């Protein structure tokens, strides 16, 4: 039996109209519409487009949440095994809609999602982590090239076959690291690469060094005497016994702990959940990582207005940047809501 595919296209490719029809509300039709015909040919019976979603680009862009929810509902009853959106070529709003729908469908139904875009389409940067996006030319003239590549990748994904490197499969690099067993030991691969570099021959690094983004500094605190300062740490400090079971490594969560009336962290009250360093010192005296004792002194002396009555802790050890980012964003939301002025973040 052929795999079931739902296809997403915009009003233009559905033949409804151009810019003047871009506010077209989402609709689902059984079977193939527009470019779906080309997919039908490319699937050679291995998969079948059971339904096609049509949505105006402007409508999607201005009602993203609503449109997404509505389309997910429409798709559900067709029980798709995969979802294909576009190709969108270099159409920005269309690409963004394709990417957003791929991300939503992948999250909701956990099925393969495939789109096709020109690398400069803004949808690529926004959604490449969430979808397989085949690299296409910049206009619909590239349809004959895009469709077979998208169909081929879709079939591979549907059959659960291993997906090769972006250059082999024709998709845009998603930035997702995937393990594989190579033919040679890592040591031998490293010496091979070393020899190539020594000789000035071409070589391909196995990992491109990351470039980290930047955030502008916030203005300075003007009135420290009335400021509320919060303590945050990636050093894993928590009440003794680690009640939230924060992992020793690759933390999946952070803890929020009340320190109202606490003047000092002691080996009786607090410890560290961190697994990346010798915990002896922090377990003996957690102030060595989270300086509650000194902050209380400074509060009493009026140097700072107040030490915030909650501290936040997670374990930085082996914790992914994505999780750390999520924790940071959630913690700062709570700190702002609580009227905190500034933050001291300690790391081990």
């Amino acid at each position: 039996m052929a795999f079931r595919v739902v296809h997403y296209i915009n009003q233009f490719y559905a033949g409804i109209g151009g810019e003047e029809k871009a506010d077209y509300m989402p609709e689902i039709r059984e079977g193939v519409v527009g470019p779906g015909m080309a997919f039908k040919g490319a699937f050679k019976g291995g998969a079948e487009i059971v339904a096609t979603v049509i949505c105006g680009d402007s409508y999607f862009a201005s009602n993203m949440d609503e449109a997404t929810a509505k389309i997910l509902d429409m798709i559900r009853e067709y029980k798709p095994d995969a979802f294909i959106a576009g190709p969108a070529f270099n159409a920005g709003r269309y690409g963004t809609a394709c990417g957003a729908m791929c991300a939503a469908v992948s999250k909701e139904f956990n099925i393969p999602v495939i789109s096709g875009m020109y690398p400069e389409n803004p949808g690529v940067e926004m959604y490449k982590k969430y979808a397989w996006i085949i690299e296409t030319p910049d206009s619909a003239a590239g349809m004959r090239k895009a469709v077979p590549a998208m169909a081929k990748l879709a079939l591979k994904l549907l059959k659960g076959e291993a997906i090769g490197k972006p250059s082999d499969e024709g998709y845009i690099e998603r930035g997702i690291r995937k393990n594989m067993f190579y033919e040679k030991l890592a040591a031998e691969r490293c010496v091979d690469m070393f020899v190539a570099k020594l000789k000035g021959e071409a070589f391909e690094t196995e990992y491109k060094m990351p470039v980290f983004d930047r955030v502008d500094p916030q203005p300075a605190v003007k009135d420290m005497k009335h400021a509320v300062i919060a303590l945050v740490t990636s050093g894993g400090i928590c009440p003794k016994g680690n009640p939230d079971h924060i992992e020793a490594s690759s933390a999946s969560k952070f803890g929020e702990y009340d320190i109202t009336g606490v003047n000092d962290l002691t080996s009786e009250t607090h410890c560290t959940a961190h697994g990346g360093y010798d915990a002896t010192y922090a377990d003996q005296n957690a102030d060595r990582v989270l300086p509650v004792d000194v902050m209380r002194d400074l509060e009493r002396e009026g140097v700072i207005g107040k030490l915030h009555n909650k501290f936040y802790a997670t374990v930085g050890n082996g914790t992914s940047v994505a999780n750390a980012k999520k924790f940071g964003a959630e913690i700062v939301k709570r700190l702002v809501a609580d009227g905190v002025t500034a933050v001291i973040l300690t790391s081990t």
Partner: protein
Amino acid sequence: MKLELHRLSIKSLKFGDNTGFKDGTLTVNKAELLEMISEDPLLGKNIDVDIAMPGEKTRIIPVKDVIEPRWKIEGSGQVFPGMVSDVETVGEGKTLVLSGCAVLTAGKIVRFQEGIIDMSGPGADYTPYSKTCNVVLVLEPSDPNMDKHDYEKACRIAGLKAAAYLAKSCAEADSESEIETYEYADIKTGMNSLPELPKVGYLYMLQTQGLLHDTYLYGVDVKRILPTIISPLEVMDGAIVSGNCVSACDKNSTYSHQNNPVIADMLKRHGKDFNFVACIVTNENVTLADKRRSSSYATKLAHMLGLDGIVITEEGFGNPDADLIMNCWKAERYGIKTALLTDEYAGQDGASQSLADSCPEGNACVTAGNANEVIHLPAMEKVIGYAEEANVIAGGWNGSLSEDGSITVELQAITGSTSELGYTKLGAYTL
């Protein structure tokens, strides 16, 4: 320097009256081995020796270290110098090796810093130590509240003693061994030979972050050394010993030091692709001043030796990434070309940055895979050690151990899975 490794190929293990080798079988006198280990007052009565063979439905958890049994039958010094033997220089003469055999030490030392070894099933593919015939020491301290540092030391010494004892007991079978010969010239001779080839070295980074994250060189705690030079042959005699309690996947076991695959490959290519002049050992300490000093000193040594290139291997992850990066760019600024060997922490979904630090000079980087990738390990018929440790081990979480005995963890929890000495075939690529 010339070192012969006399390899006795171990195909099976059994307990018996006399420890020794016959027809591919290593017989272990359990009582004798236990008695020798329990001489240490730090270890309690509750210690045991077990056997785990490749292909068996056996899980060993929590594993501290893996050691290959070796014993010097000729030449100065003895294996594991400064640890269980005198401090005399090693790396010359003849060393008996029980190939295909390993001693594993297991115990709840730092709990989250020990690892899992499955002898069969999907987990076995990820650890080199599923393919060795393993003599497992399960070690409990004499006092349950014993200081962890004392307990770690007791386990470390017990493993080394057992490894030396097993190989020593097979010395009579030396005539059956296969001989591999390694030669290493002094630096003056080495420098003058092979003038047409680039002179290269190996910068060997060792984890030394603190009392329980330590490595020893001739018995010296490596965090106290300035970077120094060592011959690759000394390493084969156990000059470098792991005392590490860090994530299981990328702590370099003593076994992987003894069999360092980077050294093996560089020796193989010496005289063909380059002139392998020296190994430089350096540390990964906890203060920035130490990191700066060691990276400056290690790369300065490479510069003083006139090296054209170095291979750099890291141990561990996180802040040691900063050591790796400093070693890389400082060497490159001397005009010394580098290739790096590390592993990755890209998140369970692989979508995050893999390293904590980076530099543009690190353009030749090999990785032993993403340690955060999750694996499901089906239940085994036999567990040596304590299965419940899966819930606290680095790479596991509360609930990693299911009721049916299966375990879901990150590769991080599997001993040697992302070895940064490159002792596995695992790697990663970008989707």
